[in-house]
């Protein structure tokens, strides 16, 4: 029996932005639409934060909503929360809220708040879900809002559709075969290969990463940012690929991700377009997370899960700062100095702070996670640890280079005030507190991620070391009878497939 939360947090956090999307859709006034979106998004954050706090007090690996309407209707747990997803939900909700809040009035007419809330609802639903087919359905749905925006902006969506179509095709094909197979140990080679390919595609691993640069160049910065920063691709790896893929599949994801981390860091260094720069920077960091997920030591995996959160938060803030600057001066050319520091010292400070946090600078939220990740890697694969350090060093140079290009080097003359607006200041203070607070008091975060890592590692030997041949139903009944939470989490992924 899955433990229950004290309130239907999950359903409320998913339904609230969905309702907000409908209300925004009925509005023609962008300013009003932004206010409504802010309110609904803030509520969603409140519910997801409540869910996290409630879950933390339960001392359980898995829980579902109180008064779970969907369970009553479908006789199964559709939305559940576990140690992996618990902090990801408020993190994603926060990123959505900050994006909506920090949208300048001049850009409000071109930014669809309705579609953003719809995306938020889909993202939160994806992160609350453990059932393979529902995750695939939600991941497919998540593709639609950015596509609509590309169409509205009269930009080519061919690359995006091509890659995303292939991604969904591979997921559906691979998961169908897994569904038809006898169990995780009997997963056909082709199914594992298809799921691995899907993971590589969505993760933007080289050489199938061009859709990311294309999306950043053609979609609104906010939309592109929100499509990638919650890292639903990594979540899909954990839920869909990890439980069924053999060791070689996970290792190939890790190796290619490691190559991507260094390659993208190098590419970020030479970019002259700020959006492409951010895209590569993010790609490098998200690849580090994917690499870390393959480090099968508790320390390494804890580090990867910590970096997942810190990168989401810090690069989310970094991207939002970049978006704020872009909203004021247009597309940013990094081959020139812009000298904006005097006009926006607060945004400049946040840019530097979040950028440094992403590379694991001491005193910021990324430091301990990166240390754990590298330490875990050095323990198992010393070469991987060194490569991670090289990628981090290159990213560090790229970040300071971008800071210097955007905020220094000349005197910028502006006829209007470019200073941070009150709503942006709220975002700056909130992000700074989280980045510094998480850096100075890392123990609670590390403790929670360690528990998640241990539970995830308990799942791994099942597919890495093939189990004795027995009927899948026997295994299922055995899992149920053992009443182990970790077993039930695995069963959840494999259950309800008939």
């Amino acid at each position, binding site marked *: 029996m899955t433990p229950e939360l004290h309130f239907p947090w999950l359903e409320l956090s998913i339904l609230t932005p969905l309702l907000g999307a409908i209300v925004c859709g009925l509005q023609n006034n962008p300013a009003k639409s932004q206010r409504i979106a802010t309110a609904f998004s803030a509520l969603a954050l409140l519910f997801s934060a409540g869910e996290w706090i409630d879950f933390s007090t339960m001392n359980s690996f898995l829980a579902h909503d109180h008064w779970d309407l969907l369970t009553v209707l479908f006789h199964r747990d559709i939305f559940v929360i576990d140690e992996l997803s618990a902090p990801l939900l408020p993190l994603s909700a926060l990123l959505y809220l900050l994006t909506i809040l920090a949208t300048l009035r001049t850009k409000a007419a071109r930014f669809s708040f309705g579609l953003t809330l719809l995306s938020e609802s889909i993202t939160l639903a994806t992160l609350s879900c453990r059932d393979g087919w529902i995750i695939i359905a939600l991941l497919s749905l998540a593709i639609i809002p950015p596509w609509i925006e590309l169409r509205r902006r009269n930009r080519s969506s061919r690359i995006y559709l091509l890659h995303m179509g292939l991604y969904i095709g591979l997921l559906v094909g691979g998961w169908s075969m897994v569904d038809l197979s006898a169990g995780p140990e009997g997963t056909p080679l082709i199914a594992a290969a298809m799921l691995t390919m899907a993971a590589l595609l969505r993760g933007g691993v080289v050489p199938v990463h061009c859709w990311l640069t294309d999306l950043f160049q053609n979609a609104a910065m906010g939309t592109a940012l929100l499509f990638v920063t919650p890292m639903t691709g990594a979540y899909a790896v954990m839920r869909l690929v990890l439980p069924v893929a053999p060791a070689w599949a996970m290792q190939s994801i890790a190796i290619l991700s490691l190559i991507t981390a260094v390659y993208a860091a*190098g590419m970020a260094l030479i970019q002259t377009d700020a959006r492409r720069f951010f895209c590569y920077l993010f790609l490098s960091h998200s690849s580090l997370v994917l690499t870390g997920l393959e480090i099968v030591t508790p*320390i390494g995996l804890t580090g990867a899960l910590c970096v997942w959160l810190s990168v989401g938060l810090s690069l989310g803030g970094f991207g939002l700062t970049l978006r704020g600057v872009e909203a004021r001066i247009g597309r940013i050319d990094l081959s020139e100095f812009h000298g904006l520091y005097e006009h926006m010292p607060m945004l400049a400070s946040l840019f530097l702070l979040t950028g440094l946090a992403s590379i694991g600078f001491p*005193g910021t939220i990324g430091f301990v996670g990166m240390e754990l990740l590298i330490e875990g890697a050095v323990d198992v694969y010393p070469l991987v640890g060194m490569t991670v350090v090289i990628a981090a060093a290159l990213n560090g140079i790229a970040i300071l280079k971008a800071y210097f290009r955007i905020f220094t080097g000349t005197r910028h003359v502006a006829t209007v005030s470019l200073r941070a607006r009150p709503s942006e200041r709220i975002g700056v203070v909130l992000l700074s507190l989280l980045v510094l607070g998480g850096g100075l008091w890392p123990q609670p975060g590390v403790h929670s991620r360690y528990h998640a890592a241990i539970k995830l590692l308990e799942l791994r030997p099942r597919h890495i070391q093939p189990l004795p041949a027995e009927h899948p139903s026997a295994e299922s009944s055995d899992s149920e009878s053992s009443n182990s939470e970790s077993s039930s989490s695995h069963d959840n992924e494999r259950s309800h497939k008939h």
Partner: protein
Amino acid sequence: MLTACGMIVVLSPALLLAVFGLSALAGIRLSERLVAKLTEASVVLGLFAAILILGVMLITDRRFIPVEPGDWVSIEDEHFHFTIKFVFDRLSVPFVILTFVLCGVIGAFASRYLHRDEGYHRFFLFYAIFQLGMILSSLAGTIETLFLGWELVGLSSALLVAFFHTRPNPVRNGLRVWSAYRIADAAFLVGALTLHHMTGAGDFEGLMGSGPWPEGRASVTDQQALYVGLLLLGAAAGKSALIPFSGWLPRAMEGPTPSSAVFYGALSVHLGAFLLLRVSPLLEASLPLRVTVIALGLATVVFATMTARVQTDVKSALAFASLIQVSIIVVEIGLGFRYIALSHIIGHACLRTLQLLRAPSLLKDHHALENALGQHLPDQRGLLRRLSGDKLRISAWRFASERGYLDAMLDAYLVRPFIAVFMWSDRMERRWTDFLTGQTSTSAPAPAPAPSQQTPNTNGQ
């Protein structure tokens, strides 16, 4: 009481940074007077506590006082502990007192020197980061704590080099310094984690064996000592501007005089030597490592001696003069003269700070000297200049004037190939996306300027 004093030494600069940092983030502008007073209070408090500890150590003949606030992060089941630990010993106490004294002098000097400068608050924010970094590095009892301070020093240095940020040259030089630091820091991190991995602890006591500094013995094999030692030597070379990283030192003089004085003349530039002193038991464990340290120090001495003689501005000349002394200190460390090296660091740091602070009034001092003598200062030709031929002199001058071609070589063999590879990749990617969309990319990257064109202009104020 000693623990409380130890904590005051660390907390006083930490609180200063918290006040300056949070006020900057919240957009609150403190008055110049308040900034100066807070800085003064922080330095006096920290210095007083450090001297108190020194007094107790001298009176009680204690050579090792650890202060352990506890685990910052711990995972009990994995026996993983990220411990914050500070040690007061014969190496750290002199270095901490030196840091406070010089930071105090520079703080007082800068509060007048930068009076009403638009970057006044920014300077003191970076100054607070630097001071905290130096104190953490000096007192670090674990290699992770040392890395923490090390990184803070690096960041503040790069930002201070780029202090006059409305001009492109300081900014370019700041980036150059940061790049050199990042590469060196990467070596440090890998070295630290490898050492941690080998010995199973990040604590210097565990790493270096029992016995207070300088009597510890490394608990690793000579091969391990060589491997880790080389990585740490790379880190030290980056921070102390030894070959091949020497190119960043004159560029660092682009910053305001107080920062040049305290960072590159006195404290920051000695941090590499301090690291070598801290891990000196590793040097003891490996003869090839010691030979490498001595060779690197000697090579840098020769390079810096030649280069210092052809500098045409006072700050660059002082920078290379500093480098000569730092290299000699490195040689001393390699030879095992640890107390001499420590004394050398302290004496040199104080002298160089004074010289750099007087640098803006060099001409005035020069004229005052000539007026006092009643004649021009004599042109003293060196022995080498008198004995060597024109051809050799010109070659040597070119070599020195081009700063040993170090930057040019790094650019030619490292930076340009790196840029070329990734520019090519970028073009290929754009072609691929163009092919898929049937459109042409709007913004292909312009060729990046060759790094060598970014002159190490050293006309800072």
